[in-house]
C-alpha cells in the first residue's frame, strides 16, 4: 500500500521584512524545500499555494520567479488554516493517483495591527463588531469559567512558548519573558494582555510531498491531513457568527478535524510525542488541549501546570515557540508547523528537540471556521 511522505521542507523566517516582497519570501521557502527533496524543474506535477492576503495568482508569481510553471498552480484560502487546506488537497491528489510529487507552499505579508478581514460586512465594522481580539477575549473568559484557568495560566503559556521560541532561528520574537511582564503589558481586551496575543506578520513555508511505497524507511510520513469547517450554533466559534444557540455540546471544528485525523492515522492523543497548535492567543492554546483531546475537558489548566506541555514534559506543545513567538503569517503558518514537526521527527530541531519524537500533530484553526489537523509519523 502506498502512502504520502514529506521529502523536503523549507522556510522563510516569520517576522517583518521591509522591502522583501511576498514573492521573494515564497521563492526562499520553495527553493529550500525543493533542494532538500532533490526535486527540480519538472519534478513536481502540481503546486498548491496557501495565502489569505496575497491576491490574485500569488502562487504563480513565486513559481514564475523560479522559472517553474506549466503545471497546475492553485491558490488556496482557508483563513488561518490555508496551509492545512493546501496540504489536504495535495495529499488527496497523490493518494488518488493523480500526481506523484506535489509542491505545497504558503506565503503571507500581513498588514500591521488588528487584522482587517473582508469576512466582516461593512456595517459590522462600523458598529465596532469587527474587533477580532474581543472574540478571543470572550472565548478566554468562558474557558476560564469552565476550566479553572486563571490569568496566571494565560501568562504561563506565553512564558513557555517564548522560552521555546528563543531557540528557533525562524521565530520573530527570540527573547524569553517572565509572567510579571506578560501581566504588566497593556490590556487589549480583558482578560487578554498584549503579550498574550500573537502578531500578524510575514513569512513563507514550503513542503514537498511524494508518493511513497510502504517500507521506504526513514522518511517522514504524512499520516493524515484533514480540514473541517464548523457545525453552526456555537456563538464563539471561529465562524464568528452574530448569534448562536444555548447548546454547549456542539463539537468544535478543531475536534471534528482531530477526530477524523486520529482515525485516518490510526493513532490517538496518547500516541503523540509533540504538538504544534494554534496559539493565536494564550487561551486558544489551552482550549486546543481540550478540543484536540490532549487532556480531558476542563483539564487544560492542570495539564499546563504539571509541565506536560513544556519541552522535557510528556507532550511538548509548540516547541517552535508557537505563533506567540513566530507571529502568524496566515497562509504560511500551518506549513510552518509542518516544517517544525518534520525537523522534530528527523531530530534536527537544534536547541528545542523533543527526544525520540515519532508521532506529531499540527493544528490550525481560524475564521470560516476552518480547522486543520495534520499528523506526521516516522
Amino acid at each position: 500500500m502506498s502512502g504520502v511522505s514529506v521529502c523536503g521542507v523549507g522556510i522563510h523566517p516569520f517576522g517583518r521584512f521591509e522591502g522583501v516582497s511576498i514573492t521573494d519570501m515564497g521563492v526562499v521557502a520553495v527553493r529550500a524545500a525543493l533542494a532538500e527533496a532533490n526535486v527540480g524543474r519538472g519534478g513536481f506535477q502540481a503546486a498548491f499555494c496557501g495565502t489569505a492576503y496575497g491576491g490574485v495568482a500569488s502562487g504563480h508569481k513565486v513559481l514564475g520567479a523560479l522559472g517553474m510553471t506549466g503545471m497546475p498552480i492553485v491558490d488556496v484560502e482557508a483563513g488561518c488554516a490555508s496551509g492545512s487546506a493546501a496540504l489536504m488537497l495535495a495529499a488527496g491528489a497523490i493518494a488518488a493517483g493523480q500526481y506523484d510529487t506535489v509542491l505545497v507552499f504558503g506565503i503571507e505579508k500581513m498588514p500591521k495591527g488588528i487584522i482587517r478581514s473582508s469576512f466582516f460586512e461593512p456595517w459590522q465594522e462600523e458598529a465596532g463588531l469587527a474587533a477580532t481580539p474581543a472574540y478571543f477575549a470572550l472565548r478566554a473568559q468562558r474557558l476560564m469559567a469552565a476550566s479553572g484557568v486563571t490569568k496566571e495560566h494565560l501568562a504561563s503559556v506565553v512564558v513557555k512558548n517564548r522560552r521555546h521560541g528563543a531557540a528557533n532561528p525562524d521565530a520573530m520574537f527570540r527573547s524569553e519573558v517572565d509572567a510579571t511582564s506578560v501581566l504588566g503589558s497593556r490590556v487589549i481586551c480583558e482578560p487578554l494582555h498584549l503579550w498574550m496575543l500573537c502578531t500578524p506578520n510575514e513569512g513563507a513555508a514550503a513542503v514537498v510531498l511524494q508518493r511513497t511505497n510502504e517500507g521506504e524507511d526513514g522518511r517522514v510520513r504524512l499520516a493524515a491531513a484533514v480540514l473541517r469547517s464548523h457545525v453552526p450554533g456555537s456563538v464563539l466559534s471561529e465562524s464568528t457568527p452574530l448569534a448562536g444557540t444555548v447548546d454547549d455540546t456542539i463539537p468544535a471544528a478543531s475536534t471534528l478535524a482531530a477526530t477524523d485525523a486520529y482515525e485516518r492515522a490510526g493513532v490517538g492523543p496518547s500516541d503523540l510525542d509533540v504538538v504544534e497548535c494554534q496559539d493565536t492567543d494564550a487561551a486558544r492554546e489551552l482550549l486546543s488541549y481540550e478540543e484536540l483531546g490532549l487532556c480531558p475537558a476542563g483539564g487544560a489548566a492542570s495539564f499546563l501546570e504539571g509541565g506536560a506541555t513544556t519541552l522535557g514534559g510528556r507532550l511538548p506543545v509548540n516547541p517552535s515557540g508557537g505563533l506567540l513567538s513566530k507571529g502568524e503569517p496566515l497562509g504560511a503558518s500551518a506549513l510552518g508547523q509542518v516544517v517544525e514537526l518534520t525537523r522534530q521527527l528527523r531530530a534536527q530541531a537544534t536547541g528545542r528537540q523533543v527526544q525520540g519524537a515519532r508521532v506529531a500533530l499540527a493544528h490550525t484553526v481560524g475564521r470560516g471556521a476552518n480547522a486543520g489537523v495534520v499528523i506526521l509519523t516516522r
Partner: protein
Amino acid sequence: MSGVVPVREGLFTADPPRLVGSLCDACGGHHFPRHETCPYCAADGARPVELSPTGRLWAFTAVTAPPPGYRGEVPFGFGVVELPEGIRIVTRLTESDPSRLTPGQPMRLTVVPLHADDDGNQVVTYAFAPDRGRNDVADPIDEAAR
C-alpha cells in the same frame, strides 16, 4: 436634512428597541440577524420575529482600540447576551468597564449612537445595557416557557 439612521436597515427597531431575528418553524431555531434559510436545518421560509429585549449577560469584555472600519469612541463594552428564546447574541454593551459587570446579570436592549455619517446623520446601532431595575428576573428558560 439630517436625522437618525440605523447602521443597517432591518437589524432592529428603535422604538421600542427590538432586535429583528427569525424563527424556523421546521426546527424551532431562532436566528439573528434574520435569515430566510435556516442555518441549522437548511429549511426555507424562516419567518421574521422580534426577539426579547431582555436577557442575561453570558460573556463580556471591552474593546480598547478602534477595530478596523470603526469610527466611534473607545473603549466600548462587547459581549454576549443570552435571551429567553435560547439564543445568544453578540453585541456591544453600554458598560465599557468589565469590572462593573457580572456573569448572568440582567441586561436590556437599547439603541446607541456610533458616529455622524457624511450627510450629518447620526448612525445608531443596538447594544445591551445593565438592567438595574430588574435584579430578580426569572431564569431565561422559565421565561421562555411562560
